[in-house]
């Protein structure tokens, strides 16, 4: 079976400083990969390299495109990469402001990706927007409100709807629950779990919160100082950590 994403030897340097290095893994359809690490571990750098926001200094990121099989997204033209970013890929930012148009209504935000791939029927676009807002638990009466009128959790859910409306196969998430209240986080994670399963999504989630990976990720990569120091099944890495740093990380989490 072809992997959906094939990451080979990705490295990014800032002068002599290592952003991330020696990262390789395969991701298959329906798999969720968590990347954990503390500040400065290189996890966000890695995510941005994978998602095409940064150009890595080395390595390949091959994606199984719908029409041409595995293609290295780093050597793709900018036009193709941007198209990928609007259709097959999705990116959920930590701060909703980065992932939404704050001066456009919720319906417009969700409809934008549809209009970008030539949807031209207002009624149909609006109905799909309503449907998606419902799936992320935002009521229909909010469809014409701007995101500035939403709470943080709602903005985040709107971001998810906006990203998933074109049925992407791969979702990148950067600290999706960061900055949200605990109860709001729980609701968001549940939603993500459900959507990932329903839509058979693959996802790469960067977080420093081990509870998030326990809940969402099948596989886990632990990063420290730009290196991947341990990788495996989520429950295995968390229950039977091999590396000293992983053991430290796991034992540091407070039990409630």
């Amino acid at each position, binding site marked *: 079976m072809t992997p959906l994403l094939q990451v080979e030897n990705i490295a990014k340097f800032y002068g002599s400083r290592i952003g991330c290095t020696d990262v390789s893994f*395969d991701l*298959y359809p329906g*798999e969720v990969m968590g990347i954990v690490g503390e500040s400065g571990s290189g996890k966000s750098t890695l995510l941005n390299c994978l998602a095409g926001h940064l150009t890595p200094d080395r390595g390949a990121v091959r994606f199984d495109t719908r029409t041409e099989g595995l293609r290295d997204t780093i050597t793709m033209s900018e036009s193709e990469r941007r198209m990928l970013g609007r259709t097959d890929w999705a990116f959920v930012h930590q701060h909703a402001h980065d992932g939404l148009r704050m001066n456009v209504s919720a319906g417009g935000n969700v409809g934008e990706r549809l209009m970008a791939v030539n949807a031209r029927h207002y009624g149909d676009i609006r109905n799909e927007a309503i449907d998606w807002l419902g799936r992320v638990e935002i009521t229909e009466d909010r469809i014409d409100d701007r995101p500035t009128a939403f709470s943080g959790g709602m903005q985040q859910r709107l971001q998810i709807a906006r990203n998933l409306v074109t049925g992407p196969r791969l979702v990148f998430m950067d600290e999706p629950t960061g900055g949200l209240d605990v109860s709001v986080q*729980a*609701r968001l994670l*549940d939603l993500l*779990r459900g959507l990932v*399963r329903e839509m058979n999504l693959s996802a790469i989630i960067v977080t420093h919160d081990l509870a998030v990976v326990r*809940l969402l990720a*099948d*596989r886990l990569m632990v990063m420290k100082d730009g290196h991947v120091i341990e990788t*495996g*099944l989520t*429950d*295995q890495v968390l*229950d*039977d950590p*091999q*590396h*000293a740093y992983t*053991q*430290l990380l796991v*034992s540091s989490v407070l039990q409630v």
Partner: protein
Amino acid sequence: MISIENVSKSFVLHNQGTAEIPVMQGASLMVSEGECVALVGASGAGKSTLMRMIYGNYLTASGRIMIGDVDVASAAPREIIQLRRRTLGYVSQFLRVVPRVSTLDVVAEPLLATGTDADEARAQAETLLTRLNIPQRLWALSPTTFSGGEQQRVNIARGFAFPYPALLLDEPTASLDPTNRATVLAMIAEAKTRGVAIIGIFHDHAARDEICDRQFDMTKFTPGLAA
């Protein structure tokens, strides 16, 4: 069906002075279809550890653990995920509760994950919950607030929802009253008849003797405990 060949494991605790604790050495065991084997041995002999190694939850240091054609000890994460989805079920000692997911959805999940139609999955979940005496009024609630026994029964229902060819049961009758205990033992017996290979840990000796075909003494393979 399940073939454990010469497996070993030790834990290295890096942040506690790099203490190395060997927990298993050279353990071998074969379980055929329709057989139920009990892991026995004193507390600390490694029964739960072996079970977790079979499930891939713990890494195996050396040896092979064959479930059908797959060697869990050396398989890629993807293969183990597939294995857990369709081949190997695991009823742990404690239900890991996710808040906001209803009991019905908890039990239906293994079916939904393997592509069963949503209505069908829910119907099967309802049947199992009824059999295990979880009242209908609780089905829409999250198991977060249930008693230990209720949580355990939900856990068992989930473990038996999908017809796995191999099952791992860690203390399945703990916290259960006699009626439910009997129900669970009947469910295990039915699984055996279907040809499921089962490995279990039972502190309940009567249950163990009733349902298990043989016992596997872990003590022989535990360094420091071996007679």
